[in-house]
């Protein structure tokens, strides 16, 4: 073996350790940069929009005059949209998950359905908008109604709900099922009385996250023709509507500075709603994990 010059080794070692420290600092710095960006974003929006947040802003219709404008129709529209989307997407999504986890035979068609759902989760939201435009708005003749919007949104969030519900159902220990089967329960009784009750926290978490996605989505609603200026609130599922992100988009797209501030006000409300929903999801997950 060659003799190693200890001086060279220690010199190299110092370099290697220096490089290693540099690398660590780089990775740390870059990660906290991401945190900083979130901070800057929230700060920027708050500074611009906070002055506009008052009762009048929440209860007024949009207006050409910024000082009179508000998000009332957008808030009510979003509420309609989420309620309808939830009542369509949750039952269908959860039942589909139950089928795939509890009933489906292990064959190629089931595998195909699973791959298909995973792929649907990655389809751009605007493509769902195109589907909604062609099928619900034009073909089924629902026009620019909140129902057409909710049906489009349901298709969009369905894969998210199915995937979350499947995971929650899979986490239920199979001993529970076998015990129920052993005393003569039918498959549906097993699902209804044992699997679903234990899977509910996980399913709820997924559902809330899916619905918060529906609240924030803009592109599909623009596709199906949700209006950008609405001075009325929908009174039924077939009425025209607007939604919070649409209103924000509309104000942001205007050149005047004042409307940007209104948009920031709308964003604060939107983010507050989303944060509340996320906090609920985290709380449910936490309680579920404690049991």
């Amino acid at each position, binding site marked *: 073996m060659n003799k190693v010059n200890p001086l060279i080794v220690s010199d190299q070692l110092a370099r290697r350790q220096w490089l290693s420290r540099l690398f660590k600092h780089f990775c740390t710095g870059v990660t906290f940069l991401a945190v900083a960006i979130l901070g800057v974003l929230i700060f920027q929006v708050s500074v611009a929009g906070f002055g506009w947040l008052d009762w009048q802003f929440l209860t007024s219709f949009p207006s050409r005059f910024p000082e009179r404008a508000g998000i009332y129709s957008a808030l009510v529209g979003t509420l309609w949209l989420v309620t309808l989307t939830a009542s369509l997407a949750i039952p269908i999504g959860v039942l589909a998950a139950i089928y795939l986890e509890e009933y489906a035979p292990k064959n190629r068609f089931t595998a195909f359905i699973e791959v298909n759902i995973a792929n649907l989760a990655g389809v751009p939201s605007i*493509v769902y908008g195109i589907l909604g435009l062609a099928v619900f708005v034009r073909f089924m003749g629902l026009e620019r109604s909140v129902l057409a919007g909710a049906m489009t949104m349901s298709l969009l969030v369905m894969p998210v709900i199915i995937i979350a519900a499947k995971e929650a159902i899979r986490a239920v220990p199979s001993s529970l099922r076998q015990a129920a089967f*052993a005393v003569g329960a039918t498959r549906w009784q097993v699902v209804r009385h044992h699997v679903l009750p234990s899977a509910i926290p996980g399913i709820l978490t997924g559902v809330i996250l899916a619905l*918060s996605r529906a609240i924030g989505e803009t592109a599909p609603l623009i596709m199906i023709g949700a209006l950008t200026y609405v001075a009325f609130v929908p009174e039924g599922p077939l009425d025209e509507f607007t939604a919070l992100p649409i209103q924000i988009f509309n104000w942001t797209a205007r050149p005047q500075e004042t409307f940007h501030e209104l948009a920031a006000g709308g964003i604060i409300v939107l983010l507050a709603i989303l944060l509340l929903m996320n906090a609920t999801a985290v709380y449910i997950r936490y309680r579920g994990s404690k049991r």
Partner: protein
Amino acid sequence: MTAAVGSRPVKGSTSPLSSAQTRFGEGLLEKLFFFCALLSVLTTVSVIGILAFETYNFFQKVPMLDFLTGTRWTPLLEPKHYGILPLISGTVLIVLGAALVALPVGVASAVYLSEYASERTRNIIKPVLEILAGIPTVVYGFFALTFVTPLLSTIFPSISVFNAASGSIVVGIMVLPMVASLCDDALRSVPDALRQGAYSLGATSFEVSTRIVIPAGLSGIFASFVLAISRAIGETMAVTLAAGATPNLTMNPLESIQTMTAYIVQVSLGDTPSGTITYETLFAVAAVLFASTFVLNLGGTWIMRRYQEVYE
């Protein structure tokens, strides 16, 4: 499964068990559930069917070759041209910029999270990334327009109000959480024994990360890249707001461009009757968009499955 089964007869179970006896409705329920699951297949079929149908109609009026190789996209202005290349170049420009932001930062954050961060820091950073991922894209559009663009214009005074750079930076920020979290999963699945082996030979943490951990998690990292690119292609609101509405065959990020998604939004903001060629362009552009994200998503999940290192 150690549950004691049938050690004691159940009270009142006098009826003989028979496989012919099923409760009313059991079979019906299963059919209902199956239909719910089938709905997802139906969704895919109708997406593909509708895109194919309207795109076919479009190709009756505009030759496919002109559409795919034309360098001018002016369907809303006279003289009309239907060459999709400007929209594709706009999309590619946004995706390249976003990749430049998200991929290195995402991998570095993942290395930090899996190799350096304490459990406590992880528990803070992870939710922050989740919040970043959950912020609606229209908010990122607002951020691009009111923060990133003014910032860029102090560095590059010649920049247009609407420009690809600003759009791609926020799209990068948007897909960053996904890259970081998928890469983190990949790096954490590398067994500790590999790291310990390298450390015991005297490797520094830099060497362990770059020569052991990252190579071992490479398939997951690649998959995250592919999925992030697919996400960036489909991103709509931020690029509509920040990058402009000028179909522009350029690779200069300081100029205003238009992506495929932004074009679709631009047309939908007006009222376009069915059957017109403008209506059909929506579907033709969406077909290209759908096909590219579909291939990338399939590729991403394939890489993840195919090249996953399996450790005992």
